[in-house]
């Protein structure tokens, strides 16, 4: 097998890697955002429950959680390894994203909420129009770190048999007996993806920066 087809075969796993990331990251963001809002504004019991949730989810290795969620999901709904794996990674990431967004919400001063309520906004309006627009901007730098982590963690679905970059590198390294070349290719593709995402998000951060609000 010539080198171009070799690299092509591994690179064709990129679609799966990106697919996993594009399912896991947004679903983790939406879930994380909702949970963070409940955490901050939802009262004591909600805050305590979510703090336990966050402690558990972030205290267990992602691959162990992936296996647990994957088998629970396969037992209840019939999902392909791709979907089950991606959604599981999203749930795992939601705990980390919740903490990122919660931190950003808390860094927007409480006085703004009071000010918004004083001018007649409802709590939800204040969250929607005053707090979140600032929060999400502030959350970009730590969030871009999380995005890189999710791209890298997408390699864990290898263990579920999804034909992503690493799985393809493994398949072809066995059939061509070029493991070094195969895994180096895989590593470089991942590196490219992470680098690209970081650059993209840094641009976004600069564009959305609020002047005079470091």
């Amino acid at each position, binding site marked *: 097998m010539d080198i171009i087809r070799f690299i092509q075969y591994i690179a064709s796993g990129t679609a799966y890697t990106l697919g996993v990331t594009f399912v896991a990251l947004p679903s983790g963001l939406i879930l994380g955002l909702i949970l963070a809002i409940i955490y901050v504004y939802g009262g004591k019991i909600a805050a305590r429950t979510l703090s336990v949730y966050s*402690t*558990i989810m*972030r*205290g*267990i*290795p*992602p*691959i*162990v*959680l992936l*296996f*647990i969620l994957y*088998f*629970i999901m396969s*037992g209840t709904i019939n999902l392909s390894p791709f979907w089950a794996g991606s959604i599981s990674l999203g749930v795992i990431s939601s705990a980390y994203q919740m903490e990122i967004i919660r931190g950003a919400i808390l860094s927007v001063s409480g006085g703004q909420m009071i000010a918004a309520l004083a001018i007649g906004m409802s709590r939800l309006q204040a969250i929607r129009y005053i707090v979140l627009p600032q929060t999400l901007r502030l959350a970009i730098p730590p969030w871009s770190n999380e995005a*890189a982590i999710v791209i*890298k*963690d997408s*390699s*864990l679905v*290898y*263990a579920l048999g999804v034909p992503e970059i*690493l799985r393809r*590198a*493994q398949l072809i*390294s066995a059939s061509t*007996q*070029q*493991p*070094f070349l*195969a*895994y*180096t290719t*895989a*590593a470089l593709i*991942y*590196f490219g993806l*992470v*680098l690209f995402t970081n650059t993209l998000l840094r641009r976004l951060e600069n564009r959305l920066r609020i002047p005079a609000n470091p």
Partner: protein
Amino acid sequence: MSDWLNLLIRFFDDFLVGAGVTLELTAIGLVMGFLLGLGLALGKVYGNKPLCWFSTAYIELFRGTPLLVQLFLIYYGLPSLGITLSQTLSAYLALGLNSAAYQAEYLRGAILAIGNTQMTAGRAIGLSRWQTILHIILPQALRLAIPSWSNEPILLLKSTAVVFLIAVQDLMAKAKRAATTTYNPIGSYLAVAVVYLVMVFALNALLKWLERKARIPGFEMEGKKGSL
């Protein structure tokens, strides 16, 4: 429920052995990562151009690729270059090399926070560059680094869980074993999840204690508090 307890009892000894392997991997990876990471941090801050460039490239490459890929590259890839390491040694090496990149960034942050004036002062009283680093900067920087660095042991403990994929008999491998013999994967992985949580909590408590012990009063760096 009783099924699950039976599983836990049946495999308890196995899980303990696996947990021991996991802790060993974490400890060795952490020490290797610290020594190499310190070198990289110093190289990036004080090194000459090639050294600085090398450190930067190393840190970016290892932080920009999945640990699992690094592990496979070392375990399955190196033998085709004539370097065949055992399963345990490959795992140590992958964890150490990977952790070094992250530890280098924590340490570099602390070194930069000490600032250049102390270097100037050290040189002014007649110390050489490396003497200043060794006797003045590092003792402060290492203590200063502890709050942000204390994330790393826990992160590393969690990342060791992939080494079962190169047939190392860690806690996760024991879970897989329990899953294949009992055909109860959820129960098995839940059981080891609890074991991992216990280890993470214990480690976290230890690190918090260390943080308090090593604090320099009135001289703290803004850093992330522990990861939990």
